[in-house]
């Protein structure tokens, strides 16, 4: 019965080959090309020929206050969004982790923000935030608080955008942690209860430690996406007012497709790539560690 054709023996490489070629063409080659462009001064609008300038584009962009602010803002936005989403998401999962009437409806509701088109979500929140006709200022004034300027003011714009991200993505953490909780063994909880531990003690010292790897993975998945947040910022503020909500992704987009300074935009993209790549490596390490 030894009847194994060439095709079958090499299946492990020709089966994935089309996918590999596709990713190489559409991801690897473009990333290398971006890297190459970051060492040039290419500007699509100037008409001047592309020249190799070494690290001069890096020196130029990296010393620009606008870039440094965008970098800081990217981290600030990500840290705030992920921290709040983590706290609320885990708390919601712990609350919902029991049998109750309407549990399946609750789960469906959790899915809705996750599948809602981000651009449209941003627009709906702009209606809430509108300083003159928005519902939020109406609520604030009804309870005697001063109205806010939300996304129209430099000081409040980033926090207002974080709030939208929190609304949309907290359910992601809740769903992942709920799935993690469902897979936990029941014996440790039972044992702690028999030993007389309170509900809070059980959650704090038994449940949370057991589900911690899942929580961490959920947080890092969110972290990677939060670093790249584009749609809601672009649709709600376009990076404004001024540059007050400009993150690296938005700045890179503007340099590429509004100013057409390809060399400098490539520098921004390389930095964003390195930031996200470093965080992604973290995820792989963490997953590997939690699997052993």
């Amino acid at each position: 019965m030894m009847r194994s054709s060439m095709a079958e023996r090499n299946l492990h490489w020709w089966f994935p080959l089309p996918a590999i070629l596709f990713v190489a063409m559409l991801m690897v080659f473009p990333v290398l090309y971006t890297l190459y462009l970051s060492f040039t001064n290419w500007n699509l609008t100037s008409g001047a020929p592309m020249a190799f300038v070494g690290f001069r584009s890096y020196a130029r962009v990296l010393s620009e206050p606008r870039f440094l602010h965008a970098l800081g803002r990217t981290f600030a936005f990500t840290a705030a969004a992920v921290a709040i989403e983590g706290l609320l998401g885990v708390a919601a999962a712990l609350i919902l982790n029991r049998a109750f009437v309407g549990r399946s409806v609750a789960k469906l509701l959790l899915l809705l923000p996750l599948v809602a088109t981000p651009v449209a979500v941003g627009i709906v929140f702009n209606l809430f935030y509108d300083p003159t006709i928005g519902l939020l200022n109406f609520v604030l004034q009804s309870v005697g608080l001063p109205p806010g300027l939300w996304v129209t003011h430099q000081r409040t714009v980033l926090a207002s955008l974080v709030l939208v991200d929190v609304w949309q993505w907290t359910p992601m953490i809740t769903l992942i942690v709920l799935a993690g909780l469902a897979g936990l063994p029941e014996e440790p909880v039972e044992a702690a209860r028999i030993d007389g531990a309170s509900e809070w003690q059980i959650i704090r010292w038994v449940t949370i430690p057991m589900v911690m790897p899942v929580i961490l993975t959920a947080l890092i998945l969110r972290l990677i996406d939060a670093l790249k947040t584009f749609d809601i910022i672009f649709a709600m503020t376009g990076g404004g007012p001024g540059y007050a909500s400009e993150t690296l992704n938005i700045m890179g987009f503007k340099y590429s497709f509004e100013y057409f300074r390809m060399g400098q935009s490539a520098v921004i993209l390389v930095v964003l790539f390195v930031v996200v790549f470093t965080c992604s490596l973290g995820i792989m390490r963490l997953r590997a560690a939690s699997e052993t």
Partner: protein
Amino acid sequence: MKGRFWPNVLFYLVVGIMALVVLFPFLWMLSSSFKTQVDIIAWPPKILFEPTLRNYEKVFDEQDFLKYFVNSTIVGTAAVGMSLLLGLPAAYSIARFRQRKLAVFILLARLMPGISFLMPWYIVFSRLDLMDSYTALILSHMLIALPIVVWIMSTYFATIPQELEESAMVDGATRQYAFWKIILPLSGPGIITATTLSFIFSWNNFMFSQVLSMEKTRTLPIAVYNFLSYAEVDWGGVMAAAVAIMAPAIVLTMIFQKYVVKGLTMGAVKG
């Protein structure tokens, strides 16, 4: 259950508040889409009003949203279909031959910032005269769909016992025949999960389409965004457009709820 009454009331109160927070933006969007401009800018905001279909007429008659709807459907369907074609064999190979490095390589397309591919694509597609073409748009959306397909399906294939193909192969079938005739027919749930999720992500994509599509191939998210920028104060129209773009994804999610949950939580939770 004596003494459980008040905790239960508290519990349902908390759950109710959570549900309201999640639902409220949808409800407000929906109700605003049936309001006239006068009712929308009314102060205090109106809860009760006389509904109008005028906003939807504007969106579908004057704005040609049907065309963008068709474009989004074409791009999403083609991108998901091609991604299944490339991704299913790759996922099978990753699952059966434990090709972890290959899995990571394809997954990078999901993790890396899309803009670092988009700028070079823009240059290349312009040179090839492929701007505003379905080809360019579908290729770019495949880079969204393929990692999702590979991720979900390699996890799914790993749960199918190896013995199934092996016994067929002992009987003389080739492995590729066993994949087609035995494994794929058993993979319905996984394929539904991968298809639904990658279609929704393609449907919602804004950045790639914003750069690569123009009048001919414009997709819905871009149409909604453009509607906002030149009809700045027409909130009713914008809300109707927002409803129109979200409705299909939400209906898909309701139909395939179980699969969507599985797809979104897969990978973070082992097994």
